[in-house]
């Protein structure tokens, strides 16, 4: 809980005002996607690629975020995130 609180306070200071109005589609894994992806960037990066990436594209992109950009996301969470994106934002 304490960790969660700390994460939320970091998140709150890091976000730009407008991005709080971005609404992602409901679905399994949505909250995890919000908490993990929005640590580093606004969620419009997801909606922007909705008509562009297929499942393989999302796998590659999430992999890049972890392996190249240094997102601290474990394998179990990675799978949930990819499943959510491929299900809800696939071209």
């Amino acid at each position, binding site marked *: 809980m304490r960790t969660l609180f700390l994460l939320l306070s970091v998140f709150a200071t*890091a976000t730009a005002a407008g*991005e709080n109005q971005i609404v992602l589609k409901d679905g399994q894994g949505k909250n995890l996607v919000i908490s993990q992806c929005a640590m580093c960037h606004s969620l419009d990066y997801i909606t*922007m690629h909705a*008509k562009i990436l297929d499942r393989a594209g999302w796998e590659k992109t999430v992999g890049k975020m972890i392996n190249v950009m240094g997102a601290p996301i474990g394998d179990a969470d990675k799978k949930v995130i990819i499943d959510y994106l491929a299900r809800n934002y696939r071209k």
Partner: protein
Amino acid sequence: MVDRRHFIKKVAGGLAALGSWFLLPRSGLAADPVAADTEVATIMDMLPGKKALIKKSYRPPNYETPVNYFDAPFTPNDVFFVRYHNSVIPEVKAEDWRLRVGGEGVSTPMELTLEQLRRDFKPAEIAALCLCSGNRRGLFQPHVPGVQWGSGAIGNALWRGVRLKDVLAGAGIYKSSVEVSLDGADSGMHKSSPDFIKSLPVAKALDENTLIAFEMNGEPLPHWNGFPARLIIPGWTATYWMKHLTEVNVLSKPFDGFWMKTAYRIPRDRFASGQFSSQETLTNMPITEMVVNSLITNLIDGQTVPAFKPLEIKGVAWDGGIGIVQVEISTDDGISWHLATLKQDYGRFSWRQWHYEFEPKRTREFRIMARATSHSGASQPLEPIPNPSGYHHNAVQKIAIQAA
């Protein structure tokens, strides 16, 4: 970390009433072909100190300029496009800012204040076009991942500062040096995120046109465009124009960070642009010079204009620093071409404005195209040249207007 929460204002009037997540009506989508095609709503948003721009992403902030602002020879600072790779963007104070000049390739590392830069080096000024490598990426078919830029990640400005070569001379460069790396104050959210560091061939760093600029159009650089100082590499795409410049290192071997080795690369021999031999592989190379290009700035696809009345078609044209020799206009879908009139020349690194008078003598659709040619003879292709990251989109624009 910057908290911009209380600074950001929504566009006044109707847009604000609808909130930021509004969808333009179908008829309005033509103004933003990227939005129309990717079904992403066009959102206008204001960063502190900027007018409303087309928001591509909030964080990191990526905002493009509506093309109608390009009717002016120099793009006003408060509408100049904004592009960042990282979310942590400190607001640098001029008095705290230091530029470190070092690396294994210099004999005398230095640290300079803004005051020292202004006082100890000869001032230099240049009109130069700043163009995001991925401008018009959103128009590639099939789509490629990355910020889905329309035509507005571009701006022309008068930059004033000092020459990088003069600063480097003070540090004493060894002749064996290969590249000069550039770092700015921004960074990623995690220590493990690759810092945004770029490098230049030594010859480009020592080019007399390469500046460390602290003024833009007669004013200090806006925060979002690199305050207090940024690199200006005329002719090269903006990825090298490091903002909030903090560090310049002279290197004895090629820089191998992510943003050079992996990102901003184009297939070799596909574009007529400059070399960067220390960074080339068998198959690809870094993007370098801008390719010849043009943009119609006062017409949008689907627009209705009065028939039997003169219509001034306006636009801009540019290349990587050789200079524009001509711009041709077609009003019949590319069957016949006519020379546009070029306006004032602000130097070979500035864009060149042009205009062409046309009278639609029927009530029907007209297909307008513009095609620029540089002094080298290079011209624009009818279709964009495919490449994995969607750079160098310089296809001839095709705009359909309705005369009624």
